[in-house]
């Protein structure tokens, strides 16, 4: 228990570091030296030192947005086994609770954006409300597959049980689909290229970045932190999917786990460097791909389990 809490705190504290990796990868592809790895910590400290300017249009919901999204992300991470270690908390059905908690965070992020009366933020909010619907459907599709494989409905059962090869042993081909599907979900939910471009300069083409235009100071810092935690949540799931090994020693497990997470961040950086963002009306099709993959992954196991 103590170890789990320690691990959780450690993960929370390292999330900005991982997000810095993406900048490094992009800089590498751009032939630049890039910002230091710790850039996100500097940004957070800078933001926390500042005051804020609030729009006259906003209400208390605007200030609730950052809090709810960070709280939801941190609590979601409580339920996730890190490095194969049992999570801080776990109960039957916690996956559903966590997914809906992330939904709550989305509700408040959107509501905070709508609070500003800005047409740009409204536009971003409309997109933020749209694409994750498909993500949610494909996430539940993956959940159905996992339930068929384990008969359990908690994340501890999926990501911390000691199996030499994890799900790959029973349903290897399905897992290939699941990893790709989940990576697409990760890109969509965390507003990365090719769904959203965090580095774009035109407000009209943004999703997540435009929704937080009016936040400033510590509030914005909390939003950034929330985004890092959410990204880490998804990345650690992918990490555990690709490296489900138990290596005996906790240190080795931890190393493999964080190496996997690092790999995911590097992959995100690579995708971001070599791809352009899709046209907005193409995005739903891209996200639907993940649903199709998850669906086929489940269909395949139907045959296997017979």
């Amino acid at each position, binding site marked *: 228990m103590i170890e789990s809490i320690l691990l959780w705190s450690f993960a929370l504290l390292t999330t900005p570091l991982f997000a810095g990796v993406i900048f490094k990868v992009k800089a590498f592809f751009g032939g630049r030296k890039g910002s230091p790895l710790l850039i996100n910590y500097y940004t957070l400290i800078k933001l926390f030192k*500042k*005051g804020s*300017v*609030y*729009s*006259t*249009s906003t209400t208390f*919901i605007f*200030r609730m947005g950052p*809090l*709810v999204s*960070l*709280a939801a992300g941190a*609590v979601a991470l*409580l339920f996730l086994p890190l490095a194969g270690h049992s999570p801080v*908390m776990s*109960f*039957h*059905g*916690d996956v*559903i*609770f966590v997914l*809906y*908690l992330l*939904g*709550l965070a989305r*509700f408040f992020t*959107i*509501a905070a*954006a*709508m*609070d*500003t*009366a*800005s*047409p740009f*933020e*409204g536009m971003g*909010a*409309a*997109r933020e*409300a*749209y694409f994750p*619907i498909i993500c*949610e*459907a494909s996430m539940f*599709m993956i*959940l*159905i597959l996992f*339930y*068929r494989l384990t008969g359990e*409905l908690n994340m501890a059962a999926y990501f911390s049980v000691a199996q030499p090869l994890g799900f790959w042993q029973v349903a290897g081909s399905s897992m290939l689909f699941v990893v790709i599907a989940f990576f697409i979900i990760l890109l969509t939910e965390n507003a990365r290229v090719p769904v959203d471009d965090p580095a774009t300069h035109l407000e009209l083409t943004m999703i997540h970045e435009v929704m937080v*235009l*009016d936040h400033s*100071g*510590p509030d914005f810092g*909390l939003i950034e932190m929330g985004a890092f935690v959410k990204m880490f949540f998804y990345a650690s799931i992918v990490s555990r999917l690709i490296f489900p090994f138990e290596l005996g020693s906790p240190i080795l497990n931890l190393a493999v786990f964080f190496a996997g997470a690092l790999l995911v961040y590097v992959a995100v950086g690579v995708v971001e460097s070599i791809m352009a963002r899709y046209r*907005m*009306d193409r995005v*739903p099709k891209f996200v639907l791909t993940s649903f199709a993959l998850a669906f086929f992954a489940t269909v395949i196991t139907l045959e296997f389990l017979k």
Partner: protein
Amino acid sequence: MHGKPAGDGAKKIATGGSKGHMNLFFLSIWIVGSGGVLALLLSGKFSAMKTVAALVIVAGCCLGMLDALSKLTQEGSAQASFSYLNTLSLEFRIDGLSAFFLMAIFAISMLAALYSFHYMADDGKPLRTAANYLFFSLLIVSMALVVTAANMVAFLLAWEIMSLSSFFLVIHDYQAAENRKAGYLYFVFSHVGAMFIFAAFGIIYSQTGSFGFEATGLSPALKVVAFVFAFIGFGSKAGVFPFHVWLPHAHPAAPSHISAVMSGVMIKTGIYGILRMYTFLDLHAPSVGIMVLVFGMVSGILGVVYALGQHDLKRLLAYHSVENIGIILIGIGIGIIGVEAENPIMAVLGFAGGLLHVLNHAIFKSLLFMGAGMVLHQTGTRTIDALGGLMKNMKITGVTFLIGSLAISGLPPLNGFVSEFFIYMGSFRGISAQTLVFVPSLLAVVSLAIIGGLALACFTKVVGVVFQGEPRSQAARDVAEKGPAMLVPMVLLAGACGVIGIYPGAFMFMVVKAVTALGLDYGRIPMEPFAGMSANITLGATVFLAALLALLALRRFLYQGKPVTRSGTWGCGFTRPTTRMQYTGSSYAASILEFFRPAAPLEESHPPVKGLFPQKTHYHSHVHDIVEQSLEPFIVRPVGWLFDRLRWMQHGDIHLYIGYILLAIVVLLFFV
């Protein structure tokens, strides 16, 4: 108009002969009914009439609710019977299922009656307000009788009174042509629906020869036919797609406290009817479960898609009733499939989730309708795109509406999540089973996920456009909320959303009681697993709230001694923004509606901007309901054509009319 109250009176005289433990129940509906009659007597003095009527109805409902609660904690059931006009016997019975619905009916009606005190503010029409109270009390009484009726005669009598009294409530504002049309549509739908229920009961009666709720000796095929007829009939009351067409017309037409009762509890009598039919028919056909589930899925998804396309706040909420009825039916469908698959856990979880959603939807939907009523009352408009920024001046309405929106989107830590959680748990139970159970379970899970996402999109639209941002028209500027009688019910309902969301344990106990009454032959349903799951939800919600509070403290610490200023919204460099440049509800929903275009055709009219000095232009969009659209060519016109051909029978000669009756009796004598 006066026929029904008289019939009601006759029934009340008969209640003198009731025995058993239903005295308190009959006393409470007596009080509720007398509240309506007193309103009519006092119609000369407007405020005295309102006070007396509202108070008496509240008192009656309060008594009824307490009685229902005590019934829920007791074992067994209470009965009463008496004969009506010495020919038909009327039987009433309160078992766990009835008590559960009674609790919801009385609780919501009580708060709606309280709300009406300040809502019915037009003292220019005292008689109409008095009539409104009379029909309102009749509606409450008849709903209570519907869910307690223990034979077909009593049931249909109460059902008809319920349909008619709510019809008069819908046309309360009859001077508007739109409302008369809504009332007519409702009238037609409820009576065609009633016809199907008559047909279902007729089939059963033809085999059993008794009016009781029993189906011994019915062949399995006839049972299915009877259930399908009853499903159509009850579904048209509940607002199941495609029988929902009346709902989005009738709810906006009725006064808001009536919309709250109609949408919150009256349509649930349809769900009660379906459950009661399922119970006493003792059906064993897997196809029935799949049918209920598929209707639930379609209602759930299309209901929320159509809701997204609405511009009228109350119409939007009405479509959300279709969605939530869908969720309830998904739960019931999973329950029935679980029974057929001999998977008791799946069955109980499905039914329990569906029933808890009945209560939850009653709570948050009436809360939302009351909030919408407050908005309508103070701004005079229901058009979403004409509102905005109401949160600043209408704090209590805004916050309670926000809580209701979170609850209806099924988000933790509120009550909507709890019932959806149980339905999910039931559905997942079916995932590990064989194909015939796996496929419906998979569909249930995926459609619940899609419904959840769409509902979130829809309610961020409502909250964002109506309550946040800046006012889009003069109507929304400088409004204030008033009327404590309107605010108190909303606060109480919002509190209930939170309590059930965080501590669902006690409510699960009641729900399991109601599921036990379904007679699933599982004996006593153990409470431990439910208590465990409820405790898990409590744990999760508590941890989340604790994290939120901790962050709140952190935020306060971070802002200590920091400069906080206010300024305009960042307009990306544009210096002259107007409130009309805000994103509207129509634009917010446009891209999602585009995705569902085949099911929800969008009609737009937008004359293009032409020339150097263009004329003023406009944009108008309307999402067509495909059922409503196909009603005219496929139902109304053929039926009209048929009846046109039969007009020669109606020639105005009374002698021949009497001849028809004679002929009908003679023919019947031969056949029966």
